[in-house]
């Protein structure tokens, strides 16, 4: 079995949305290289609970296999930590060394208020999808699945954009806290498919407007979002979104 090692942690603690927060120091030995980052925090929490002096650290997680999009930590200044194309839950301690100091903070953005400690409210993303991130097709009204052939390359590209897990790393990494990659990815998925074409303009305008209403910033092409995206979604989505937005607003959404 692998040797264990020690890490020094500085973790953001905040009791509630309106409370002040601060970084608190912890030291954890018994870290194993095969542990996931969240398992390391589980072990720390077990120590905190055993000691009984303070409440355990709250953080979001669910599937722990990199697909649900729940986990959301900024690790040493990077959303989801140092490893490319990897969610926090899939980051393993083998990416750290004995004696490392690791700073752990929540995904920060005006549109993602802190609930407690490292847990934030990302419901703004749901409202962006609600504004138009769908194809309006009622259950039961679909034609046979093979009645619309779709170029494999188009379908594959749509899939690439559809793999967004809605974690919000793009927002956390962006100096403007823009949600353009998230919004652009859904638009790039649906707008390029024949099924999504009838609502393309309306969808684009509604979702972009909602994104602004939620208090996300504008995109200034820093491309930090693409760099941290655990699913490797390309910022081409943003260019496409802007193109469609301009076309739709010039032509009018009903055109």
């Amino acid at each position, binding site marked *: 079995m692998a040797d264990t090692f020690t890490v020094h942690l500085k973790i953001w603690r905040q009791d509630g949305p309106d409370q002040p927060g601060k970084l608190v120091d912890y030291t954890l030995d018994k870290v194993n290289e095969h542990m996931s980052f969240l398992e390391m925090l589980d072990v720390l929490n077990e120590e905190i609970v055993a000691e009984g002096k303070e409440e355990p650290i709250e953080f979001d*997680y669910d599937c722990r296999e990199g697909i649900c999009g729940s986990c959301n930590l900024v690790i040493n200044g990077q959303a989801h930590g140092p490893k490319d194309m990897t969610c926090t839950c899939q980051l393993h301690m083998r990416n750290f060394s004995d004696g490392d100091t690791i700073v752990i903070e929540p995904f920060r953005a005006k549109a993602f208020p802190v609930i407690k400690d490292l*847990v934030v409210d990302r419901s703004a993303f749901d409202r962006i999808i*609600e504004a138009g991130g769908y194809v309006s097709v009622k259950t039961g009204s679909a034609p046979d*699945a093979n009645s619309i052939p779709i170029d494999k390359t188009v379908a594959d590209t749509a899939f690439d954009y559809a793999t967004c897990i809605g974690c919000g790393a793009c927002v956390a990494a962006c100096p403007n806290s823009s949600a353009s990659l998230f919004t652009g990815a859904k638009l790039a998925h649906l707008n390029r498919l024949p099924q999504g074409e009838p609502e393309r303009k309306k969808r684009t305008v509604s979702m972009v407007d909602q994104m602004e209403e939620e208090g996300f910033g504008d995109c200034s092409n820093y491309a930090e979002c693409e760099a941290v995206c655990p699913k490797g979604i390309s910022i081409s989505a943003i260019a496409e979104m802007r193109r469609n937005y301009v076309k739709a607003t010039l032509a009018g959404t009903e055109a």
Partner: protein
Amino acid sequence: MNLDSKVPSGPLKEKWSKHLNDIKLVAPNNKRKHDVIVVGTGLAGGSAAASLAELGYNVKSFCIQDSARRAHSIAAQGGINAAKNYPNDGDTIWRLFYDTIKGGDYRSRESNTYRLAEISNEIIDQAVAQGVPFAREYGGLLANRSFGGAQVSRTFYARGQTGQQLLLGAYQAMMRQVNKGKIEMHTRHEMLDLVIIDGKARGIVTRDLVSGEIQRWMADAVVLASGGYGNVFNLSTNAINSNVTAAWRCHKRGAAFANPCYVQIHPTCIPVSGDYQSKLTLMSESLRNDGRVWVPKDKDDDRHPNDIPEDERYYYLEEKYPAFGNLVPRDVASRNAKIVCDEGMGVGQTGRAVYLDFRDAIEREGKKAISDKYGNLFEMYENITDDNPYEEPMRIFPAVHYTMGGLWVDYNLQSNIPGLFVAGEANFSDHGANRLGASALMQGLSDGYFIIPYTIGNYIAATDLDEVNRDHEAFDEATSNAQSQIDKLFEVDGDKSVIEFHRELGQIMWDKVGISRSEEGLKEAIKEIQDLREEFWNNVRVPGESSNYNKYLEFAGRVADFLELGELMAKDALHRDESCGCHLRAEHQTEEGEALRNDDEYSYVAAWEFQGVNGELQEELHKEDLEFDFVELKQRSYK
């Protein structure tokens, strides 16, 4: 207890259409007068909520996650079955039905399973229309692949993320209805009790996981789509927050729990690495299409797998089951992995793993073709283990994955409590004693898109639903029940963490109620679980407070319920003195180590009625006899 399955009469192929002709309808302008609660936003809950809202009902939807899009259906990798027969390889609805009922080892209801196969094609149509980006051929039409337990290619897939794409389709359909004001969405809410008034389900009690507030919700019907209970084993492929609480609290209110011992252990998971482990990661079974499963013939062979020559490898599935080879059903594959490891041929540091090797497939089709099919799975494997599966075989071992048991439902997916409907993995309905791959997504969406919307209408149209209000004594009682359980958890103020209790329970379940079970082991398990439960209520430590975000408190409530469910699972496994599907009783095996059924005595659904907990869990057994009018019961053979 009345276990009337309400299966329509007539030929199998006509039952569902006949039923649709017969069921009562709610007029369009009356639907908006009715509220429906849907608990859970996975494939079953999400699709049900969206479809009910489209019809005009007022839907209140609840999930424990911070967004409906994160329900655990999202993690399903491999695919979804349908009898489209696009590959022209001879598939039919009958064949999909037959494979499913045979795969379930003849322990499911013929009529429900047939309906599932019948609806399968509509699901694919619906998903494609929503923009779900399934894999396609160069001609632009949909691609299929084969999956365990079938000899045709009927599985539709979106790389290794089929569940994600289907769930996002259902989630987006839901969000469209949220936008229209037809769905009221409540995220970070956990259902803690069911409210029954005049014998009918009329509401639920929830805890707001952010504020800790206990809240009351009314409706004319409740749909429970809260998923499975695999996390009773602590380590499973389920998401960490997946739990049995919503279903178990319904059970404690009188809903029968059916076949709780039917648990599927998935053969292709990444092996355990240490006791800090929080979950096990599944590698899609679709990998068995191209990967070959083997162990070294020599127990003491500690060479690197790539250095072991062909004739010193034991391809045990291919040798034992030449017709299906590596594509045998999950239960058969899992059991055989355990057998070779028990015989000492296991690999890896713990000896609890077997190889899944892509060398030959890469030689045959090229690295690119394999990467196109399984790219993300290979990356996931490498990320977790630090080994590259393009260069050396994966190490895999079985892990708890899916629970076929669940709340008992009739043909309408209604439990024995009127107005309580149960969909998806939370019900027991379609998979018998073993679920075939690519069938869970099919069942969740079939229940939610195409069954519940009709059968709820039938219930509402046919039932007198008097006005109720939130101050009804049943709401008071359920609310104080939920609150007092929380208070009780804090009052214990012991020394032992919730996680430790969960780990200990999981170990008992895995050792004695897992892949192989025996009378002796099950009796020990029952006693050990009772003792652990007693210890829990005397020594658990729950930190923090109830009026704030508190994950430990959430877990404590769930582990408390698992500590009761675990005993029921062991009792059910003990009473079922036969083997069937995933339920292998060591006493009942064929000479080849296959499950040996006893159709004369056990061809029934075991539905348990909660009677109380008094040191021992008190449950009364009721039986729904399974009648097979259309298929002949055979010993399963995949040779």
